[in-house]
């Protein structure tokens, strides 16, 4: 990577987030590093508790602090380190330069304000538009996300929209200020498959029109396969594998990724008699990991995994995996 001017819109290095609770610390994010190129869609996959949402919420500082604490690392965005900027600067970036879409469209819209008000609000605060301009822009945005009869629907309340339509509204709000980066946290998980298919089409279409970079958090490998350019797999608060989407699905190099791909039944093609099971439970991260967090559930684990936490080794072009086992040679890695 060239130093100085970076090709990345977002460059996260060694991000560490800890929750301090009465029952001790929880190390939710452990030295997470990743980059996002302009216009790229990065899929972030992991189970609940893997740290995928907390990572993204940390970088826009949308966590309650305390108990959360960003204990280290840097988040470079447009020449500033978001881990260090003032809260005022952060507020100006959040919702404007970085947009967010959350999982549950039921709870992330305010039920007592009209949808129009909720779209117009960021336009007025962040873009300084007057009422009429903002209303026009709001209509444009609702049309952009495929809501019919947009002008009339500005006066409707969230409960008058269906789940899929509400998620479209959320997307419209996130896009309102023309963000450079959109963070979408399980945006289709609460939706039915036929509605999910509509939203995925919408996102593909919007990417072409607007060219923003997207971080798409999900646990659904099917969704990722269809939409991402590059995928980052998280486990135990760390990135365990990262690769371009086709490479990851064709050639997974971390045992967790490999098993994850096998536990999901197919909708087409061969039907497996028995599902592959990942035995055991995800780890509880009461301290920073000193060994591989996947060790207890890993069929490949050997003595080194218990004494050292693997770094991310290069395993192919733009492909890295945090594992001491080398699947290509079928032997431990020499490094």
């Amino acid at each position: 990577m060239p130093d100085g001017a970076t090709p990345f819109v977002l460059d996260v290095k060694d991000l560490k987030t800890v929750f301090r609770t009465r029952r001790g610390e929880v190390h939710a994010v452990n030295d997470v590093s990743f980059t996002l190129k302009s216009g790229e869609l990065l899929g972030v996959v992991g189970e609940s508790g893997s740290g995928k949402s907390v990572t993204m919420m940390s970088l826009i500082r949308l966590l309650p602090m305390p108990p959360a604490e960003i204990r280290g690392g840097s988040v470079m965005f447009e020449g500033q380190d978001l881990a260090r900027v003032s809260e005022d600067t952060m507020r100006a970036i959040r919702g404007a330069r970085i947009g967010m879409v959350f999982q549950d469209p039921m709870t992330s819209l305010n039920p007592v304000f009209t949808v129009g008000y909720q779209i117009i609000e960021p336009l007025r605060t962040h873009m300084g538009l007057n009422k009429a301009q903002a209303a026009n822009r709001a209509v444009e945005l609702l049309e952009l996300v495929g809501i019919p009869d947009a002008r009339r629907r500005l006066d409707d309340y969230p409960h008058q929209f269906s789940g899929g339509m509400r998620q479209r509204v959320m997307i419209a709000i996130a896009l309102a200020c023309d963000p450079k980066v959109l963070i979408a946290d399980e945006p289709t998980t609460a939706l039915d498959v036929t509605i999910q298919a509509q939203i995925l089409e919408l996102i593909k279409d919007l990417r072409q029109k607007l060219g923003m970079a997207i971080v798409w958090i999900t646990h659904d490998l099917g969704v990722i396969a269809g939409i991402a350019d590059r995928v980052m797999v998280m486990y135990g608060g760390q990135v365990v594998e990262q690769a371009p989407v086709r490479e990851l699905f064709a050639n997974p190099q971390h045992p967790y990724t490999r098993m994850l791909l096998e536990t999901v039944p197919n909708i087409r093609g061969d039907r497996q008699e028995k599902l592959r099971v990942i035995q055991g439970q995800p780890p509880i991260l009461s301290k920073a990991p000193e060994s591989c967090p996947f060790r207890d559930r890993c069929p490949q684990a050997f003595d080194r995994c218990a004494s050292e936490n693997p770094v991310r080794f290069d395993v192919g072009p733009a492909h890295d995996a945090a594992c001491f086992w080398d699947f290509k040679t079928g032997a431990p890695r020499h490094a």
Partner: protein
Amino acid sequence: MRDTGTPKKLVEVKNLKMHFPIRSGLLRRVTGAVKAVDDVSFDIFEGETLGLVGESGCGKSTCGRAVLRLYEPTSGSIIIDGEEIAHAPFDKLRRLRPKMQMVFQDPQASLNPRMTVAGIIGEPLMEHGKMSAKDRLDRIYELMDAVGLNRDFANRYPHEFSGGQRQRIGIARALALNPKFIVCDEPIAALDVSIQAQVVNLLEELQDRLGLTYLFISHDLSMVRHIADRVVVMYLGKVAEIGPRDGLYDDPLHPYTKALLSAVPEPDPVAHDSANRTILQGDVPSPANPPKGCNFSTRCPVAMDICRRLDPEVAEVKPGRFVACHLYNETTSQTAGNAAQTVGA
């Protein structure tokens, strides 16, 4: 529904209707009804798993609950193991309860947080049996072994367990009275992918060992393909299609089934690029005010005139394949063949 070669029908549901009244005005008069389940019929054979799929609000969970008579059905008949339960008096129903059990979606909400695991699993034994305390504890341990829970945890509370383990507690409770028939209502929806496989494998293993019959309700079409022998697809309170698993997944007949299957994203980037998807427009209409004619006609890519006027009956169009669609109707069969091919493209 007939399926040659399969021995005995354990569950027969006929014309089941479950309507919830809509009340409005000062006097709370009934002004309408949400037809959550509207004239649904299907059979479940002994030892099989019948998958029941559909989107949220299609009535699949209501149907599952009504089949166990956790609701009072509006009309219709439910025969389980030869006994009519849809209108059975409560004392008779209570006698039949041990045969039919349920595993719920949310293991957090369906286990009493103030009871220990032993208390939860032992409760049905106390309600329905006359076991001594020692026999009961033995049975509890046996059940915990069967579902893969450590016996040492018998005196712990549900909050001390993970989601997957909690679901195992719920399964052990359902098994306590040696049921023949279990309704699994989205048993894995609240679990992580790596844990889902554990629970599904457990359900399959228990089925083999104990000869259980499942009604497996889920919105996860891939998982239903894995676990079910036959599948019922519901849309807006009605049956759209019933068929054996392989036939239904390889060659769906109803336009809704086709669209539903094509909407499932595959974990394979290469397949995505070549996939030719049918993306349905719009949302599911309200079950309080379903469209006239076929309830899918408002979103159907191949809707014809007749679909907006006449509600199609469920009919057997191939052996074992039941579809409610005018495309496969006798009178319209001329155009049906051609149209059906275009949908499948």
